Structure formats: structure tokens, C-alpha cells
């Protein structure tokens, strides 16, 4: 009985993380029912991964920028611009793919450095700089493409968007064995890692997670990975972009959790002044975050272009909104200091499943946008409600003043008079 109560107490303390995960599963089940099973057909699962990969790549960089208390509105335009640059390099100039890809990532880094300079060193709010960037790089996309699409791309680049890892069984087996090996291996690695971390937490007496919940959670995650593996293996195997994405998620999760740079990012978003007074070079950290965002935008642009096999003037339009929504649905705080890469991935998948499911149902973009907007509002609203109820999180009103992003209306600092009156009444 006490174990149950303990578990429930723990779940309420982690309502947000648990809630978002449950929401994803419910949405998947809902659309699985509504589409008559089409959603989880092997081919559609593969589509889901490939279709959303570039948003997920952007969401990684976006959640980092948001954790630091900034925002980036320009990623869609930058992705489109890099697609155009890739088109010119590969199709017009005839560069090989292995030279063009690093060159494009470098251009992305330069774009990020340009924006990071204005934000970090000149001190213009990121909202303004990247709003300008949204226009600037859309303009440059149109100029580079001379308003016409560039196509076709060589097969090597197209593989980045729609290619699969080679079939080692030679196409004779029902299941793709390489995918099965990778999927089972990844699941085993995840289990080992989870147990190792729990053991260390126990050793230092930091464990607050009840054993029951740990087992449920780990088993569930492992099962989920195996199911996805099975679904992918029974279609065409592992999309190359999934390998890229998985590598990025692992690397960036480690970076944000364990690296000095990641810690500094959280510290800046949590309390900019305290970070500064602790000797953190806040400007350099901010600058690097935007350079990183530029590189990831470039990668997203390459994947998108490769998938369409065409660099298009309107390529990347709206990506910024999807990736920002992914980060916020995934639990990032508007005030900065809170958020995770994994959360942003789940947020991105929720958006992706909504998109995909509604498209299968034949809902028009009109209703799709309406519903996606409501989901974003409810997710963040739930967050705020939860925070107000628990009363934690410290002096958020004050922290807002330190941010360069404009504070939402409800967090306006209350006049000193009414504050002191309240203090007096108590």
C-alpha cells in the first residue's frame, strides 16, 4: 500500500514528463483507431520518421536556444537557404556530395555566427535578430535560386532524405536483419544504461524514483523500441536519416546533461545574473548556441532538399513554428532554464503524428492548423497551471526581466504596492 502511495506521489511530482509521454501514446492510439490501423502500418511508420526528421533535427537546436532563454525564428528560412546553396553547389557547379555537405554545414555555421554576433555581443533580442534573419535568408534563398527550383540531385545526396541502410539478407527475408540487430542492440544498450544510472543514484542516495515505476518505465521504453524496430524491419529497414537523428539525440543529450557547455546553457537560462557572477562567459555561450543552431538548420535543410530531390524557393517555410512548438510541448520553459532534448523529440513526434494522422484522415490544412494550435496551447497551459499549483520555481516574474524575449502578458511584474499589501495581510 505504501509502495503504491509512494509511486503516486512520485508520478504527481513528475506529472509533466509522464503526462507528455502518455499524451503521445494516447494520440497514437487515437489515430490508429481513427485511420483503421493505417497509422502503424510499417510503411507509414517509416514515412513518419522520414517526414519528421528535419523538424526533429531543428527541435534539438531549438530547445537548446530556448533553454538559454532565447528563440530562433529564422531556422525555416536558413534551412531553405542551405537547400538552395546545396543546389547551386551540387547541380550547377557539379561538386561531389562529400564536399558539398561539409561546405553547406559550414555556411550554416556562418549564418549562425552572424545571428549569434548580433544577439550575444551587440545585445539585440534574439526575437528581433532572428525575425530579421527569417526575412534575410528567405530573400537570399530566392536570390540564390533566381526564383526557380533546382533539380535533380545525385542519388548519394537523395539517400540522406529517403535512403535506407543496406539489406544484408539480400532482400530474401521478411525482416530486415540489420535493422533488427541495430534495434535490439540499441534496446539492450538503453537497458544497461538505465540500470547503471539507477545504481549510481542509489549509491549516492539520490534515488527518488520508486522501483515499480522504474521497472514500468524501462520495460515500456524497451518494448516501444522493439515494436518500432519490428515495424521498420518489416518494411524497408532503417532510414539513413534515422541513424543520423539517433546519433544527434544521443550526442546532444550527453552534451546538455554532462558537458560544461550544457550546464552553462542551463545556468544562463535559469538566472543570467547569477551565471555571470559565477564567471560564466555568457556571451560566448550564447554565440555558440546560435552557431550550433545554424549548423543544425543547415543539416535539416540538406535532409529536406534530399527528400524532395529539389531545392525550392519556399523550402523550409513554417519549420520554425513546428520546431518551436515541439520544444514547448516537450516541456521547455518560456522563461528559460528548463527543457530537455528528449522532451523536444517527444513534442516533435506529437506534432508529427498529428500531421500524419490528420493527413491520412483527409483533413485539410485548415483543420490541421487549428488542432495543432490548440494542442500547443493546452500543453503549455497545463505546464503553467501545474507550476502555479505547486508554487515552485522561484521568482519567475523577476527572471523575466533578464530575458531578451518579450514576456507574456500574465507574467508582468506586479506593482510594488500591491505586493507589500499582500505581505502585510498575511
Amino acid at each position, binding site marked *: 500500500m505504501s509502495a503504491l502511495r509512494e509511486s503516486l506521489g512520485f508520478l504527481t511530482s513528475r506529472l509533466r514528463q509522464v503526462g507528455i509521454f502518455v499524451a503521445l501514446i494516447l494520440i497514437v492510439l487515437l489515430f490508429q483507431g481513427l485511420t483503421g490501423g493505417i497509422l502503424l502500418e510499417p510503411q507509414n511508420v517509416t514515412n513518419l520518421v522520414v517526414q519528421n526528421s528535419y523538424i526533429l533535427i531543428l527541435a534539438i537546436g531549438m530547445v537548446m536556444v530556448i533553454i538559454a532563454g532565447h528563440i530562433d525564428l529564422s531556422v525555416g528560412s536558413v534551412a531553405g537557404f542551405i537547400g538552395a546553396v546545396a543546389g547551386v553547389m551540387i547541380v550547377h557547379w557539379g561538386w561531389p556530395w562529400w564536399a558539398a555537405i561539409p561546405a553547406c554545414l559550414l555556411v550554416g555555421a556562418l549564418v549562425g555566427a552572424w545571428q549569434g554576433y548580433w544577439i550575444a555581443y551587440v545585445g539585440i533580442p534574439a526575437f528581433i535578430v532572428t525575425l530579421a534573419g527569417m526575412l534575410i535568408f528567405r530573400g537570399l534563398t530566392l536570390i540564390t535560386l533566381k526564383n526557380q527550383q533546382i533539380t535533380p540531385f545525385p542519388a548519394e545526396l537523395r539517400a540522406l532524405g529517403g535512403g535506407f541502410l543496406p539489406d544484408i539478407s539480400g532482400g530474401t527475408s521478411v525482416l530486415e536483419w540489420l535493422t533488427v540487430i541495430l534495434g535490439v542492440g540499441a534496446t539492450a544498450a538503453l537497458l544497461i544504461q538505465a540500470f547503471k544510472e539507477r545504481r549510481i543514484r542509489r549509491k549516492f*542516495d539520490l534515488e527518488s524514483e520508486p522501483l515499480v515505476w522504474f521497472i514500468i518505465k524501462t520495460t515500456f521504453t524497451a518494448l516501444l523500441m522493439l515494436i518500432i524496430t519490428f515495424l521498420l524491419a518489416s518494411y524497408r529497414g532503417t532510414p539513413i536519416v534515422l541513424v543520423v537523428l539517433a546519433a544527434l539525440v544521443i550526442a546532444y543529450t550527453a552534451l546538455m546533461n*554532462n558537458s560544461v557547455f550544457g550546464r552553462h546553457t542551463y545556468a544562463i537560462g*535559469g*538566472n543570467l545574473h547569477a*551565471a555571470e557572477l559565477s564567471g560564466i562567459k555568457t556571451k560566448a555561450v550564447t554565440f555558440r548556441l546560435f552557431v550550433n543552431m545554424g549548423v543544425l538548420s543547415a543539416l535539416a535543410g540538406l535532409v529536406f532538399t534530399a527528400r524532395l530531390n529539389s531545392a525550392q524557393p519556399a523550402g523550409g517555410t513554417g519549420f520554425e513554428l513546428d520546431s518551436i512548438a515541439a520544444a514547448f510541448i516537450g516541456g521547455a520553459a518560456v522563461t528559460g532554464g528548463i527543457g530537455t532534448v528528449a522532451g523536444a523529440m517527444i513534442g516533435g513526434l506529437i506534432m508529427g503524428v498529428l500531421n500524419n494522422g490528420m493527413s491520412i484522415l483527409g483533413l485539410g490544412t485548415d483543420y490541421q492548423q487549428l488542432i495543432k494550435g490548440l494542442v500547443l496551447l493546452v500543453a503549455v497551459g497545463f505546464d503553467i497551471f501545474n507550476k502555479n499549483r505547486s508554487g515552485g520555481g*522561484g521568482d519567475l516574474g523577476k527572471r523575466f526581466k533578464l530575458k531578451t524575449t518579450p514576456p507574456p502578458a500574465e507574467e508582468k511584474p506586479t506593482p510594488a*504596492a500591491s505586493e507589500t*499589501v499582500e505581505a502585510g495581510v498575511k
Partner: protein
Amino acid sequence: MNTPILQMRGITKTFPGVKALQDVTLDVNRGEVHAICGENGAGKSTLMKVLSGVYPHNTFDGEILFENEPCNFSSISDSEKRGIVIIHQELALSPFLSIAENIYLGNEQATNGWVDWRKTNLEAAKLLARVGLDENPVTPVQHISVGKQQLVEIAKALSKEVKLLILDEPTAALNDEDSGHLLDLILHLKGQGVTSIIISHKLNEIRKVADAVTIIRDGKTIETLRLDEGQITQERIIRGMVGRDLESLYPDREPNIGEEVLRIEDWSVRHPQDHSRMVVRNANLHVRKGEVVGLAGLMGAGRTELAMSVFGRTYGTATSGKVYKYGEEINTATVSDAIRHGIAYATEDRKHYGLNLIEDIKRNISLAALRKLAKRGFVDKNQETVVANGYRKSMNIKAPSVAAITGKLSGGNQQKVVLSKWMFSDPDVLILDEPTRGIDVGAKYEIYTIIAKLAAEGKAVIVISSELPELLGICDRIYTLAAGHITGEVPIAEATQETLMHYMTKEKE
């Protein structure tokens, strides 16, 4: 002549756990300038908030008579209707609005909901003439100096037909010239029949304008001195402000003082926005190994500004002067330089400058020296936990684990986290700014013990504090600051509250 305009009787105001005011009496006569004196935290501002209705009438005990009629204010607007206007230390002007718009903010000169701009600007111009401010009423407030903004506040008060004007530390943010103007204006308004209450601890100002002085200490009225009875003297005011006994709240300590560690020479700092204001002027000080040195000074004396400008230029502009460590000049132009040279600064404002309140204890402790825990850019989390657990034990941080969020700890425990953070950066010099502010008595003793331990370990410690007994209780030597000058250096053997207060209120020519 001596007809009372305001009588406050038996005012008692309690905050959770603290009696801020206890049976305070204040009598102000019509047409006089009445000064209220007291140490930081004595209850001056609380008393004025009681008077002006910031604290509604049912939240305190006692009786207020204004023009012989009882007052039951439930908000500021009630007191303003009766002609009592308070001007707070932090000006309440909207920087982008014009002078005239600010004067009539909330009291717009309008007919049927439409603002009459001609009337607004014309009336504003008349008020500006009354306060002697030669500015166009349509000028945005942000384009005029702080001194002039203060005059706009007074013009705003006049527009409300003020009978009793309350000024809370009106010259704290002004340079000498602007302060002089302001004081002249107060005298001028007195000639026009406006009664003023001025909260100040600048004794020369009080001597210049005050007809009467009421001294408040520890939330109680000590006495009211009257000019016409020849009672206003510096000695008497100082005695009234500090006269209390040292309590034995401090750990015993055998100082073991060694060589000089840090020396600051000829240090000057200008205000970051108003470059004409010198916040710290030609300060010289030093601190030795194992020594606890106090910096005493009243609000606005420049103590925090001095410390923060040394610590990576985090305050002020056009800083000049030199910092020496072990006799060699060092560069502390950025915080990371200062930390690298073994200087640590624990801020007076834990919540806004000291801690990341949404993060846990261990990550706060490791923040300033994260690289000590990192290999090739990645933090060793186990080591981090071990370190944080070590401080949790040695500093007696009361929390379920080092994974507890700092925003939910008590003030004393938060302060211990801040101190742990700086101890982990392994400094030679620790500057502790108001280390016991907002901390209960028991935790204060623990903080004093930690300070004593740091000194015993051979660290040089500088303590900035507004509480003189605290400085007398823990320091080996005390510097006093007034208006940015170091006005005194007192060895502990010669230090009393009276001597310190004497230096703290001294004006250097």
C-alpha cells in the same frame, strides 16, 4: 505656529515573525520639515508605508490623526485624496512618457475621456516653474537626469495639492549639486506652506533643512529632537541611532593574521548610467591572510559597488585604480579573471544574483568551478555529487538531498549553498556581501562560524554589512564608507558603534 498636522500614536506593525514597528509615535507640526533618522532596517520606510496607506489601516495597530481627523486609509489613493503624497526612493515614472504625461498619470486632464493636451501641458509648465525645473513639459522623462526626474516627482505631488510631502531617501541617487537643489526646493515649498517628512541618514542634509528630527531604532521611537530647542546635534543623533548593546551572538575566535593578500589602490567607479556620479572615489584598502575585514556604510555609501567593480567590473563604468594580490598587480576585468586570481564574491541578493533557483543544490555549488569537475569538457557527475554531499555535511545545509531545488530552501540554507559554491572555487579572498541578510538568528550564528572557520583556514575575508553589531562581532578591522569615500579604518579594539557611525556619516570635502 506649532499646530500639529500629523499625529501617529502607538503604531505597531507586525510581519510574520518580526515586529517591524512597536508603539511608534510621530508628531509633525504644520509647515515644518521633519526628518526621520535611523539605521538601515530600523523601520523608517515601514512607518511611512503605514502612513501613506501602502499597508491598509486594518493591518497595523495604532491611530493616525491628520489635521485632527482620524485616517483609515486602505490604499495610496485614499491618502493622496487627503493630501499626503509619498515619493519613493525608486522613482515611479514611466520613462517613455513626457514630463507632463507623467505628472498627470492617473489624474489625466480630460473632458469626457479625451485628454486635453493644451491644459495638460500648460498646467504642467506651471508646476515645473514652481519646482524650478526649466524643461519643456513634452520632453520624455528618460531624456532628463535623475535629479530632474526627482523634481518631476515633486511636481506630480504638487499637482495633487499636497499638504504633507514624504520623501524617502530623496538624495540617495543624486549627485551633490542635484542634492543641493532638491534641499533648496524643500525649503522653498516649506515657505509655501507644504509640510515635508524627509527620510535620510545624511546628517549634513538634516542639519540644513530639518526643523525636527525623530529617531527610530529597532522599530521604536527613541526621541524627537527640535531645532528651536537646540537639540539637533550630530552626537545626539548618532547616539540615538546606534544606542543598543552588543549581544553575545558571535563565536569566539583567535585571529591568526598573516601577510597581505589583496590590496586595492586608488579605486574609483562611476555610475553605469549617470557618468557624472562618482559612486566610489579613490578607495584604498587591503586585507591580510586570516583576517576578517568589515566594510561599514549606510545605504548608498558604495560598499557593494566597490566590491562588484573589483569582482570582474560587474558594476559601474570607467573604473580606475589597481588591484594587487601578494604585492603583484592583477587584472580582474572579467569575473572569470577574478575567480582565476582567487577572488570570490557572494552577493547580497541571493535570489537574483546568487542562485539559479530552479536548479538543484549540487549544480549550484559546482557552477563557479565546473571545470574542476570536468574532463575534456564533460562533467563527472559522481564527483559532483560527492563534492556537494561534502558541503551539505560540513556546512550543515538542511535539505533532503543535494538534488533538492534551491528555490525551496530557507534563506539560511540558500546562503550556505552560495557560500559552498564559492568555497568550492577555492578562493584566497572571499567578499561576503550582507551574508546574514534575511536569515534567522540561529542560522546567522552558523554563518558567523563558517566565516571564522574560513579565516582560520588562512583565507582573507571581507564582510560587507549594514548591521554594526555584526561587524563588531566578527571583524578584526573595519573600514567605513560614506558617499563613495573610505572615511575611516578602525581596528576592532578601538571600534564602537558610535565611532563607526561617526565615520559613516562623515562628509569628506
